[in-house]
């Protein structure tokens, strides 16, 4: 499926670099929901990153009774250890975002490499890489994550690797399709005729062309990674020494916050996760729609499964 983002030729010009960066911004600005998502995500990320300086209390500081009610000094109440919920949420969001972005970076590296190599070289390389991708696509990822995390032992870096290593498949497929169309464009052929090596063509001509799509995929994968971290933490597989949002939910559930009537210990962390995932979905969805309308259906399933592109399915498989 060849989807033309720009007219070929227009892209080879030097000033096109600015225009390409502009693609992402324009796609977000054109859609109010995506703008909202970006603003919300930005504010949350700022609050999470600044937690050491702006958090009202200490992360391990008991400031009141167990499951203390919301009050003027503690707008969201206290948790099972008498720790201020606002403080906990800021630190938790920091770890959750860290896991989300680190795991995504990891999976983008794998997915990007596989997708670009398969699309660019085609032939045997393509067949082998796509076969491997297909296997990863079919094996249910959450149970596999659970098994690996259970065997490997709970630690933040393990969680990041486990999530990252299983989330790259949709990126690889999307990028491969895009690279396949890019490499047939005239300017790539010209570059090749002028004697450019594979590395140069990929880095200078192909990568910049697929970068916006890679960004769209990154944002969508962050949402999936954060969801998966929350799920693993809830199943007791999170790092016990690091408080993520998933861990906050798990603690509240394990310490019977619900029977204690302490809704404030359990509603806000999950709502925060939902807001983060929602923001990422809005941004990523808008980007993908703008860049690659054919994949409109596929991105919606990014979290759980990847619906294969509806058109040209068999040519995708080979």
């Amino acid at each position, binding site marked *: 499926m060849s989807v033309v983002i720009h007219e070929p030729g227009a892209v080879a010009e030097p000033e096109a670099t600015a225009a390409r960066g502009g693609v992402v911004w324009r796609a977000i600005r054109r859609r109010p929901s995506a703008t909202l998502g970006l603003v919300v995500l930005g504010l949350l990320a700022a609050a999470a990153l600044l937690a050491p300086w702006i958090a009202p209390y200490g992360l391990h500081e008991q400031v009141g009774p167990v499951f203390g009610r919301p009050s003027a000094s503690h707008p969201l109440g206290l948790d099972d250890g008498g720790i201020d919920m606002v403080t906990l949420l800021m630190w938790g969001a920091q770890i959750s975002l860290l896991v989300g972005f680190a795991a995504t970076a990891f999976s983008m590296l794998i997915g990007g490499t596989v997708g670009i190599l398969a699309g660019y070289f085609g032939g045997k390389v393509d067949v082998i890489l796509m076969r491997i991708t297909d296997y990863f696509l*079919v094996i249910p*990822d959450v*149970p596999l994550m659970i098994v690996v995390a259970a065997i490997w032992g709970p630690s933040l870096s393990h969680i990041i690797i486990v999530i990252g290593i299983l989330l790259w498949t949709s990126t690889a497929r999307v990028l491969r399709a895009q690279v396949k169309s890019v490499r047939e464009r005239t300017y790539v052929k010209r570059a090749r005729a002028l004697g450019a090596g594979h590395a140069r063509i990929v880095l200078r001509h192909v990568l910049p062309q697929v970068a916006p799509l890679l960004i769209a995929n990154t944002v969508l994968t962050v*949402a999936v990674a954060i969801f998966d971290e929350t*799920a693993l933490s809830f199943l007791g*597989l999170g790092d016990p020494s690091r408080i993520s949002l998933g861990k906050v939910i798990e603690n509240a*559930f394990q310490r019977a916050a619900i029977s204690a009537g302490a809704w404030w210990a*359990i509603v806000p962390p999950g709502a925060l996760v939902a807001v983060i995932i929602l923001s990422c979905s809005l941004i990523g969805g808008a980007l993908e729609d703008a860049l690659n309308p054919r994949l409109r259906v596929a991105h919606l399933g990014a*979290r759980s499964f990847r*619906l294969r592109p509806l058109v040209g399915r068999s040519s995708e498989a080979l």
Partner: protein
Amino acid sequence: MRGADYVIKRVAFAVVTIAVALMINFALFRLAPGDAVANLSRVPHATPETRLALRREFGLDKSRGTQFVLYLKQLAHGNLGISFANQQPVSSNLTAAVKNTVPMVLLGTIFAIVFGTFTGVIAAWRRGTAVEGVSVTTALGFYSMPTHWLGLMLVILFAGTLPTGGLTNEFLINPSFMTHLRDLAAHITLPALTLGLVLFGEYTLIVRSAMLETLGEDYILTARAKGLSPWTIVRKHALRNAMLPVATLVALSLGYIVAGAILVETVFSWPGIGRAVYDAVLQRDYPMLQGAFLLLTISVVVCNLLADLLYFKLDPRITE
């Protein structure tokens, strides 16, 4: 490529995938820190003789290759090992768990398909109106919520009205059939609803996208030009083609349903396969975990195969 080739190719792919899953399943658990004996004999002062005897009993003194062959042989006989936790065969534990999981998951999925398709079609049909806005916002909301958290929210909302844990009320002694059934129905409501709502979000968004794509086709324009009523166009012309991806949706989303079931069953103490995975993780019950993972993987692979074949049946063009 002809149809038969396509079918053979898909079946071969499924078989190879299962073989890969078997190897992963064998290798992963052999990589676990300490062998089974170290984990099993929590006896503080086990003598070397005891350890050796245990190691021999579990076949851990043999080479990796021999162990793999033995593993496959046992598997072929349906032997998945003995659970560390309750000393019962893993296969019978799993059978009991699956019996509880299937009705819950089916109920949730049917709920999601019915309401997701309905809402998705309406949203696409009424594009650009408030109806679409509300449907899409609701669907995106449910799509974004962590499954277990949504379950906990329902617990908070319905505590006191509906039972929030377990399969049946343990205090009903020798209930009549109807009472028992009503009790089961009450217990299954919240877990199934949680799963259903999360899937509902996903299905709505996908049906809407598929429907929008179809509504943009030329033959819809033709139908409109012929003067057909909008409802006829949707029902007779658009929905049929839009349902093509949706038909395979359920099987393809099985991986997600599996993840959802694990979380939902943990929240509601539903004694199914998901709960079994959770307990096995907590107790480091490796044979159970191994068996459950294998069962889940094989079901997902088989369902994917069925989805591929169904898609082929509905739309033979895909082999062209």
